């Protein structure tokens, strides 16, 4: 998928964007390219500037500095009505006194389309979002998920070149949300419309986006595909914000090693000079359990990097359905506990129990070194 979008032509280009609210800088020197047909998510905690960036693209809140090019046209200072986009808000902003049909037709009027053309288009859109029979109802008569889809239909009715989604799913309950994620993504794929979605939900971003833009404090921390972002977080913030991450204070060793509690372990290559204080990080599900029966029956349990394998005490075990979450202790971590997620199968085969000791390995390719937060 990454290959497809990378070769697609540039559609939206943001250059050195700043936004100041008085003294507060909501966006700081943001530059970003979005390709034609791409689905991009702006992901970050609340207050990170993601919505501000979206509103700047829409022209709803003008940026203080910087330029935005859309399809080769400089739209930096254009009012929303002169830009080319459709938008869905968290509140949907459906017109409460107009029927579903009239809501969707709202943007089609005064565009040179005849009444019958509009009716055909509305029916087509209702089909597309899977609500063909609801045209005479009022928004309040629909469920949240249905309203959401109507808002989407209204936004794409005029075939805009760009679709903007501002936390479109966060007002819905969990089940509907998961379902709609898939539907929106599917719709976007069919229409091929370049889409920018703002969300604070990492799962949403990981499952829907072609590329994710992780933001924090008004700057972009990392841009990449969901797998890149998850597997190779560029900063500790990204590592921590997306998925879970054990953070262990450590010193940088020579190239490809870190020193944790006096013990040297192999890790991914890093740029830090030897001896500098860093954070070693590994995801709980990357911790490998060792011992008799740790692998599936018949397979041999091999420790790949002996420096990275050591014995730990299981302090606590928590059953979370598909896996066990274990809190592990070892003197090299000091007071800190290492969290590891072991599959239910592995835990059963190893007969793991609290207060037992076991052997684990932090695989070299999954142990990362980061600059300390705030540094």
């Amino acid at each position, binding site marked *: 998928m990454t290959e497809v979008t990378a070769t697609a032509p540039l559609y939206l280009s943001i250059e050195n964007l700043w936004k*100041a609210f008085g003294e507060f800088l909501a966006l*700081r020197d943001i530059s970003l390219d979005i390709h034609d047909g791409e689905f991009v998510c702006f992901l970050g905690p609340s207050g990170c500037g993601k919505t501000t960036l979206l509103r700047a693209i829409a022209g*709803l809140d003008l940026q203080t*500095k910087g330029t935005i090019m859309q399809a080769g046209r400089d739209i930096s200072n254009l*009012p929303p009505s002169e830009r080319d986009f459709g938008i869905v808000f968290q509140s949907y902003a459906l017109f409460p006194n*107009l029927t579903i049909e009239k809501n969707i037709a709202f943007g089609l009027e*005064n565009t040179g389309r005849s009444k019958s053309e509009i009716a055909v288009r509305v029916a087509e859109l209702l089909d597309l979002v899977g609500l063909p029979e609801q045209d005479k109802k009022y*928004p*309040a008569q629909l469920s949240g998920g249905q309203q959401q889809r109507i808002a989407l239909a209204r936004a794409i009715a005029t075939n805009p070149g760009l679709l903007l989604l501002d936390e479109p799913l966060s007002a819905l309950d969990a089940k509907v949300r998961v379902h709609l994620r898939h539907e929106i993504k599917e719709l976007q794929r069919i229409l091929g419309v370049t889409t920018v979605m703002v969300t604070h939900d990492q799962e949403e971003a990981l499952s829907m986006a072609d590329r994710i833009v992780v933001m924090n404090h008004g*700057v972009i921390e990392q841009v990449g595909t969901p797998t890149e972002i998850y597997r190779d977080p560029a900063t500790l913030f990204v590592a921590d914000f997306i998925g879970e991450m054990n953070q262990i204070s450590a010193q940088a060793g020579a190239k490809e090693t870190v020193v944790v509690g006096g013990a040297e372990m192999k890790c991914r290559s890093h740029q830090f000079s030897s001896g500098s204080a860093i954070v070693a990080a590994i995801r709980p599900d990357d911790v490998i359990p060792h011992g008799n029966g740790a692998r599936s029956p018949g397979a041999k349990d091999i420790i790949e990097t002996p420096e990275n394998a050591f014995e730990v005490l299981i302090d606590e075990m928590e059953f979370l359905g598909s896996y066990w979450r274990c809190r592990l202790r070892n003197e090299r971590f000091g007071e800190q506990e290492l969290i590891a997620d072991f599959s239910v199968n592995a835990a059963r085969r190893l007969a793991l129990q609290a207060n037992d000791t076991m052997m684990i390995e932090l695989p070299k390719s999954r142990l990362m070194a980061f600059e300390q937060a705030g540094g």
Partner: protein
Amino acid sequence: MSDTVAKELPAGPAVKGKLSRDDLLMRGGMAVIALYLVVTLVFPLYAMLSKSFSTFWFDLGQYEVQVSNEAGVFDGKAISFAALNEEMGLLSEEDLTAGSDGRLGVTQFFPDFSFRSPVLYKIRATTDSGRYLVGSKLHTGTVWLELDSNTFRRVQLRPIKSVGAGNFVKFFSTPALFNSIRNSLWIAVVSTVVTVSLAFWFAYALNRSCMRFKGFFRLVAMAPILVPSLLPGIALVYLFGNQGMIKEVLFGASIYGPIGIIIGSIFFTLPHAFIIISTALAISDARLYEAAVSLRASPWRTFWTVTIPGARYGLISAAFVVFNLVITDFGLPKVIGGQFNVLAVDIYKQVIGQQNFEMGAVVSVVLIVPAIFAFAIDRLVQSKQVALLSARSVPYQPNPNPKTDRIFLIYCSLVACFILGILAICQYAALIKFWPYDLSLSFRNYQFDRMDGGGWSSYFNSIKLGLITAIAGTSVVFFGAYLVEKSNGFKVGRSVFQMFAMLPMAIPGMVLGLAYIFFFNNPSNPLNVIYGTMAILVICTVTHFYTVSHLTAVTALKQMDREFESVAASLKQPTMKLFARVTVPVCLPAVLDISIYLFINAMTTVSAVVFLYSPKTTLASVAVLNMDDAGDIAPAAAMGMMIFYTNAGARILHLIASKGILRRTQAWRAR
């Protein structure tokens, strides 16, 4: 990555947004309505303020005169009038102060003046600003003007204008005027205390007891809003006046004065206090009462520690609203005040009675001070009230208590009797042939065309005023509120507009009316043409009642999704289409509320329009005042009740219309 990013906003100008056609349209619209408020509020008030600080006096040193001998030969010796005055000790400093229309004859400076004598006179001003009249022709300038005796006696000096606090000094040193401040404050304070207490228990009974007939009492409590404030005065005259039905109960005290004003004020301010306190009591949190019960607090203690603190903002707000209404009311003290002077009536007396516009302006300025003060406190308190109710509050449900419910029922019945009694007396008075001599009933008093005050045409003028005000006012107010709520950017302009929209509430009607005279009756004002027309009455009424209407509109608009405008823009649809298709229909209940509010107030208002009506645009409410003034009290009562029935009818129509329109246009509200 974050450390590679610049931390400082680069220098240079910010991106300047291109305005869309809608932006321009909305800003233009806002400018137009802001201009309307400037012209109909700010300019008139400024004119009034500057009037209150203008003093006029005759500057005798400005004029010189030469007198010839009997043969008509001048000796070339000129003498100033100041010197003449000093020589003779004729006019004191006080005599030389004047109004803007003051004229001073010159012959009094010449004791042996005779218009038949052959003596000739030469007169001139010594400065360019000196003005004098010969007959009705105005002369200025330093060129000598030669006149014979017969013409010279028609010379009059004109005063010069200067800016100063002289009028205020005069006001505060004239006990008759100055005492009005004390009277006004006293009346307002007493009325406020009594009204708020009465209204509190009435609202308490309706919100916190299980007594019967709540709907009826609620309706009765609102009735006084439908009549002019001076109507209770008429009823009180019939009850306790010199020939009153039950004047004995006053034990010889006179109803004409503070007693009458206070009772009447209670009548017409009760609904206002009731609405505010009732709202405050309605939103209290049941969980607090449950907590009080579980802590075994006595009902008395619960009342003082839960009920009163919960309603305190409502009580304070109600108190200041009532205070403001009473201190600025003009109709009631005019009808029943007798010799008891209050500020609002003083303005009327100074302007209509004595034609002393400068002093009228001074009293107005004095009256604005407590009015603005009360208004400011009310706004402050209202903004705090909002935060009181959390989303998790549980509405209080009263439990039946036969004993207290009966006490409340008796209490509410008494208050209802008071309100209905006043109205019934007025109706009775209107139907009696000739109180107290011929008690047979007739419609004679409805033959308004035989009385002063403009006759039936004033009634129809009032309806016309009400309808135009409701339609034009609602349009202007709602559109203005929409523009200020929903336009982008332009922060300074919007907050200035908000300020203008809040101002009218702080300005008493009398003051506004007087300010309109100063501004619109000025011949050099191009808007002078509307003076004396229905247009100025409409404009004045809309402006007078702008604030409450504006707040109603803003409240409704704030409940609309903020993003409607963004969606419309993204769909490339004009904002005005959104306004017409979505905003107005969704806000229709508020729009209807504003229009009925404006209609009823246009029907009942006296204070502002009393200065502005012309023989062609007499109004019913003013007719009540004028007929009462002329001694035609029964027809005044009859007209007052016509206003009541009209407003009651309008209210019912409004109710039916809203229901009908709501059913058709608000189908979406039903799930």
